[in-house]
């Protein structure tokens, strides 16, 4: 499959942050090989709000996992921020993720024993940021997602929407090159989901971060700068859609 042509929006940086070339991923389930991705080739550009859509089991999550360097392809290459991920060993990959990739998970995946503040602060510890800068940046991020007052609360004391706000703050706090969000509104009601999308759009604009989502949510699709449709492990033409 050829590389999709991307029409540039005015003022948008067209440098590729993510490059996939002929990426395939096969899982073994019991005695059966399941082809989750079959030769995906695509580029995702910097500072874009990109959405990957497709039915359940189409390979969206697998695609995001490969882009996020938490899984490795069976064949093909994944390049993130100019780095071929196959060239990195496990520890180097971890370090790479710590610096360049932020995640927002469907189930929030906050650390239950840490407060909202500590959850947001945690990724900065992993990159060895000094205490004062860490505290300041965490506070800025919590204010950006409107949770400065709730910072001492543990995840079990927060609503679903608040948890996802913390997760977004956690993903953005280290100012990564890419934020990957796997169905971030799936566990939220419509109103909260809309608020979260709005928030993500705001912070994306504010911090000029590249966002890549997988979703079924039509609200989210309508916000995207670029859309990839995945079906049966392949990109389906038209492979993308760029908002004018």
């Amino acid at each position, binding site marked *: 499959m050829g590389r999709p042509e991307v029409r540039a929006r005015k003022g948008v940086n067209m440098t590729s942050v993510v490059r996939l070339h002929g990426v395939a991923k096969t899982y073994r389930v019991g005695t059966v090989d399941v082809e989750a991705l079959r030769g995906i080739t695509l580029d995702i550009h910097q500072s874009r709000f990109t959405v990957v859509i497709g039915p359940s089991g189409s390979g969206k999550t697998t695609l995001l*996992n490969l882009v*996020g360097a*938490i*899984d490795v392809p069976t064949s093909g290459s994944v390049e993130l921020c100019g780095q071929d991920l196959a060239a990195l060993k*496990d*520890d180097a990959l*971890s*370090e*790479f*993720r*710590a*610096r360049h990739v932020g*995640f927002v*998970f469907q*189930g929030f*995946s906050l*650390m*239950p*024993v*840490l407060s909202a503040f*500590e959850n947001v602060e*945690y*990724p900065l*510890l*992993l*990159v060895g940021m000094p205490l004062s800068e860490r505290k300041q940046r965490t506070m800025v991020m919590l204010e950006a997602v409107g949770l400065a007052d709730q910072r001492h609360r543990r995840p079990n004391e927060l609503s679903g929407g608040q948890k996802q706000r913390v997760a977004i703050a*956690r993903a953005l706090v280290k100012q990564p090159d890419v934020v990957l969000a796997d169905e971030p509104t799936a566990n939220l009601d419509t109103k909260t989901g809309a608020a979260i999308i709005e928030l993500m759009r705001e912070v994306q604009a504010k911090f000029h971060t590249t966002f890549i989502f997988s979703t079924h949510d039509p609200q989210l699709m309508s916000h995207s700068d670029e859309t990839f449709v995945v079906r049966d492990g392949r990109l389906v033409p038209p492979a993308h859609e760029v908002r004018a």
Partner: protein
Amino acid sequence: MMLFKIAYRNILRNRRRSAMTALAVAVGTLAVLLFGGFQRNVFAGLETGAVQRSGHLTAFREGYFLYGAGNPSAYGIDDYQNIVQLIKNDAVLQPLVSVVTPTLSLVGIAGNYSGQSSAAKTFLGIGFIPSDRARMRQWNEHHITLATGAEPVLKDDEPSVGFVGVGLGRILGLCGPLKIPNCPFPPDLASERPPIDAPAEDFKDLQERDVAKAAADSHAGMPRLDLLGATAAGAPNVVGLYVASAAPQGVRELDENVIGMPLPLAQQLVYGRQKPKVTGITVQLRRTEDLEKGRARLKALVQDSRVKLEVHDFAELNPFYVQVKSFFGAMFLFIAAIMGVIVLFTIVNTMTMAVLERTAEIGTSRALGVKRGGVRRQFLLEGALLGAFGAIIGVAVAALATFAINHAGLEWTPPANAQPTPFRVELWGRTALIGLTWIALTVIATLAAWFPANRAAKLQIVDALRHV
């Protein structure tokens, strides 16, 4: 810091499970410390008993230790007074030494021909200077409470007064005069033996002289024994011994054989009119920790003596001490090993459950950039903290239990003791035992956490994230 915070909060997250795990570690700590404290008391008791009896070091004539029991008189040290003086005056040994005293070991036959009974028995004799022996009995470096009154204090100016083992007193028919308890009257065998007033011709003169001498002596109320021995020259010799009391020896073999007597009487029996000698020069140190220093100096001092001497310590002279110590040491290791295994499996179980429950969290951490080593460290730290908390609780409970036991007035009869002594646990000040137990159990807990921690570290991120 965050690592500690997460570990600590995760421990508190499942309070009941963490409490049960810490409790298992605490019970292990308690068992090891209480037994260790009790063992210490036993060792201190055994050491005190041995050092009170035979000092820390004894210089013998070369060969005596292996062969001397068959013929002690042949291994006599004749210039012993000079050697004793040499040791006492040595500038190096002086500050270390508590008592230096000569002793004479001998064998012979003890007979009671008092007219009311007639009995004889081979004996193992020890001759000593009563005042030195009394000073040696004062040694109590470990400040433990030993059974008192086990041995009478003899006097230097009563050279013919000694003591016998309780068993020997019973065998020689001295139950009444020595007020030996649990000593039933022997069966009447009078009809089956020659009458006492008609001794065998061979011993007639001997007995007549004996009875006459007994009448002349002034130790009223004390039973008298005739001790028959062979002099160093091989000639038979007899001395009379007045028995002040029967002293329990703890071990039956000793109890039925031992006679303690002042050194002059022992020398008179073994050497007769010859120049008196001794078989050993005993040195009691102030502190056992000076043993090696004392041994080295004593060896250096006696190496130029006229007869070749060899130096042995109290452990070599009291094999029972070594055996009991080894036995208790093995028991301690056995108990410690069992407790270690219990702690190991408890922590493995707890941490395995923790890894299972937190699989998705592990996936999240890894996705955020935590390395495999970071995940491993997290669970190892949790295991270590559980072990450390549990061991601290164990130490505290052990301290309370020790106080309770030591104030409960319990008694027991230790090995080689004839009388009950207070049952005590010596834990106070045992920093090495407490510290090592704490460290060992914390290390075991950490090692136990290794297996689940390693499993957690090896999880595939996407599999972990999918875990429900």
